[in-house]
């Protein structure tokens, strides 16, 4: 057995979690690109997770069909909540999307098909390293191209000045809904992936603290390019584990890290101001 393989076997769950966290961070990043602070991503991931789990566990659907169905459902829900949410700005949008997360959590708690408070167990182990990191690589490539496209520029214009963006002929509502839909797809996909290597899902995955975790990934890594959220998701997943010797204080470290980053690196770890010259889009 090669050393690399034995390393992977020892830490496989952590490595898979890191990849999923990076996907979730990208899902919040896409709405931030368009200037929208949406905190519904944990709930969208839970929707994708429940849908995919039910399909593989109870209906023996193939993994790819389950993943796409879960992502599709989350996309549909994100679009539906996206449209009315667009009347809201800034912190009000954040509150509304948090409330949406609570609604999802309570529904999952009370439905039979979602297994109530216990959630679903015995989900088949179908996801491997290549699934998670293959999808992450595709997503990263997607964002690399998106940032250099007309659509990406429309997002950035809306983020900087909605009125000016409209005066440039940009359909603000359309692009905001599009950002929400992409966010829903990525979140739903990551939910579908994670249930197939944790084998369980329960309502707490739509909770407030999960939603905030996802935001911290993006803030920690920085939102100037898609690399920031990816790095943030991976580092903040690995960090608490590598600090196990601190015992119960280790969770404190995540908070402390975030405080330090927001004070000393307000644009995140991967800020273009720190890595000058690397990021020239035009």
């Amino acid at each position, binding site marked *: 057995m090669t050393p690399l393989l034995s390393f992977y076997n020892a830490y496989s769950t952590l490595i898979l979690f890191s990849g999923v966290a990076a996907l979730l961070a990208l899902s919040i990043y896409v709405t931030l690109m368009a200037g929208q602070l949406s905190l519904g991503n944990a709930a969208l991931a839970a929707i994708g997770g429940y849908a995919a789990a039910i399909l593989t566990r109870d209906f023996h659907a193939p993994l790819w069909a389950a993943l796409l169905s879960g992502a599709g459902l989350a996309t549909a829900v994100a679009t539906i909540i996206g449209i009315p949410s667009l009347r809201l700005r800034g912190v009000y949008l954040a509150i509304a999307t948090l409330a949406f997360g609570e609604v999802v959590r309570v529904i999952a708690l009370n439905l039979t098909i979602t297994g109530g408070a216990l959630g679903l167990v015995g989900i088949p182990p179908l996801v491997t390293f290549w699934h998670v990191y293959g999808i992450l690589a595709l997503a990263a490539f997607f964002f690399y191209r998106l940032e250099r496209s007309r659509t990406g520029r429309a997002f950035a214009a809306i983020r900087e000045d909605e009125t000016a963006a409209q005066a*440039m002929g940009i359909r603000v509502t359309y692009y905001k809904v599009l950002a929400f839909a992409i966010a829903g797809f990525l979140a739903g996909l990551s939910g579908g992936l994670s249930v197939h290597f944790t084998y369980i899902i329960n309502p707490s995955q739509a909770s407030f603290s999960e939603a905030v975790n996802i935001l911290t990934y993006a803030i920690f890594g920085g939102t100037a390019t898609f690399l920031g959220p990816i790095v943030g998701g991976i580092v903040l997943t690995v960090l608490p584990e590598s600090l196990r010797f601190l015992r119960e204080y280790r969770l404190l470290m995540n908070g402390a890290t975030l405080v330090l980053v927001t004070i000393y690196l307000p644009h995140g770890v991967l800020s273009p101001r720190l890595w000058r010259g690397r990021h020239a889009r035009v």
Partner: protein
Amino acid sequence: MLECDHVSVAFGGLVAVDDVSFAVAEGEIVGLIGPNGAGKTTLFNVITGFLRATTGRVRFRGDAIGGERPDRITARGIARTFQNIRLFREMSVLENVVIGRHIRTRATLLEAVLAAPAHRREEARVRLRARELLDLVGLGPRAHEPAGSLPYGEQRRLEIARALATEPRLLLLDEPAAGMNPAETRALTALIGSLRRDAGLTILLIEHDMKVVMGVCDRIAVLNFGRKIAEGTPLEVRTDAAVVEAYLGGRAAGAPPRRRVAAGADVLALDDVSAGYGPVDVLHRVSLRVGEGQIVALIGANGAGKTTLLRTVSGLVPSRRGRIRLHGASIERARPERIVGRGVAHVPEGRQVLARMTVLENLRAGAYARRDREVEDDLASMLERFPVLRERRRQIAGTLSGGEQQMLAIARGLMSRPRLLMLDEPSLGLAPMIVGQIFGIIQELNARGVPILLVEQNAHLALETADWAYVLEMGRMVKQGEADRLLGDASVRRAYLG
């Protein structure tokens, strides 16, 4: 091409535009003038879809466009610039223009992700076109700088380039010359003329600079209190009695010539000061004096460093070398709030009133650093001096017109009972009559003993008002002297007076 037919706009009880009708024919350049608060920008917002007319109709090339979304109207071929400049400040100059191409490009997200040839060709065309437009407005060399870092006049030109990128047939310009010096204004006037000649554009513009309006417009419509009070050729409008009374003001608008004051003891002294943002110095070893009782003017081209100098005195830009003394005490290391506490009031360019607070709250905020009990007395005298502000004292500052905001910004600065008042472009975006009033106020304040450091694009007015003046060029002091001498200086006239 454009017809406004009995258009009215009411905000609650306030009628901002009152039954205005006018038309713009293809290929015309039409000016829209009138005092601040007359409803000019409101009318622009109606035409471009940002506001809906309460009654009346707007037609563009025969189609009714009232109530359409702004992006649809842009797609139809109407582009605009904004009075209060709305660039994408964090993006580069080039990116701003590239975004302007949005509506004229078609590549889908899928094509972009797959880097399809169609997408690549389109991107190359977009960049090429954006470069051409930047060259047209003279910003080619600045393509990769952040838009927010450009001086005011260049930001205005960038907004024009960005608007042109949408391929309009009708271009609406909202105070394009505000913040430009005479040389830049001449270049702008030439640009506007060439847009019609070479690109076949029809142009509707709001402008206070009468040289621009009289120079390029075929026809002028005049608004006052939301109503159209006159329309005609520049000559007809200029001699119209109602227009002169409402807008242009009498000949003596600039206030009587004042007695020049010789420099007393130094209030403010800069010695060998260098300062700037990031790694680059904007000011290079600059020295300057403001004496007791003086009005000192600082003139120079856009980007010369005038605003930076004021910001350095205020402590908003750190100085890298040299000394800054206020009444003999060094302040170059002091924090901005301490400098305000020592009696420096800085009225910034572009006003920067606290937009969500009322007029009264803004004025009280100006007295924040004071501990004495006469704040209420000063508040009362301020409202007396600025009757418009008294009328609007409970109004939210962001809803005031440009001129009213400028008055509020000056009044707010005065609330700190400054021992030195620094004014950055007080005439920016103001109607001629209001400019006369503001400069009257400046002289009156000075007569009561407040020394003033004045930065002003309207160099003529600045030199007429000031005792002493400095000329700043590329961050260096190149000339100083008695203001009236500079007014007669041939090289100064050529460069800044037009």
